[in-house]
């Protein structure tokens, strides 16, 4: 199954991915995606607001969808909220499967979904200036490719 967590705390991406395969010999592929805070254009901090009940429920639902869609052997999705600094990890999607195709596809699917459907909102700090991040059409396009059968 795919474990999902929403937390303020940092995570250890390598340890999370390694844990998926620990003690098993049926896993042939682990794909891990880590999203990090970039210091673009003088960004000094990023604050992630979210809708906790909906976030938890929707991430679990999309994880179940990925589980049904690809032959996976395990997975972990972690999304942070709260105030983060440049270089900090924001999100982790780690997927284990027998073969690489399913692991890559499920990881990309989950990331595209998290970008466009998970109720998080990013506010950027640049010194004293704060600005809400606008949604990107490119993210909608990326998510839409999973809708076609």
């Amino acid at each position, binding site marked *: 199954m795919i474990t999902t967590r929403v937390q303020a705390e940092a995570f250890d991406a390598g340890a999370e991915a390694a844990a998926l395969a620990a003690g098993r010999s049926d896993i042939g592929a682990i794909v891990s995606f880590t*999203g990090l805070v970039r210091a673009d254009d003088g960004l000094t901090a990023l604050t*992630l*607001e*979210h*809708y906790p*009940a*909906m976030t938890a*429920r*929707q991430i679990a639902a999309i994880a179940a969808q990925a589980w049904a869609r690809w032959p996976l052997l395990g997975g972990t999705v972690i*999304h942070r909220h709260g105030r983060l600094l440049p270089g900090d990890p*924001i*999100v982790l999607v780690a997927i284990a499967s027998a073969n690489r195709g399913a692991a890559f596809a499920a990881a990309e699917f989950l*990331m595209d979904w*998290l*970008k*466009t*459907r*998970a*109720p*998080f*909102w*990013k*506010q950027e700090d640049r010194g004293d200036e704060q600005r*809400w*991040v*606008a*949604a*990107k059409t490119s*993210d909608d396009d990326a998510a839409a490719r999973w809708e076609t059968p």
Partner: protein
Amino acid sequence: MITLLYFAWVRERIGRDEERLALPAGVTTVTALLDHLATLSPGHAAALADRAAIRIAIDEDFVSSDAAIADAREIAIFPPVTGG
């Protein structure tokens, strides 16, 4: 009575993250709800002025603006999400 939740700049413009309201009888769709809320205060009006930038969830599921709000317990109003 219905619980309304506001997030991100919708929350900031309205000036609160939650309120409980009894809705007028005619307010049965999301669009009608937004029209009604926009009359409550200048903050509400400012938050809801650009409807293309508003997203809605009823009881933790995304809905479109023509959705019925019949049995809604909790309605969340927010900008397009930017997680991940």
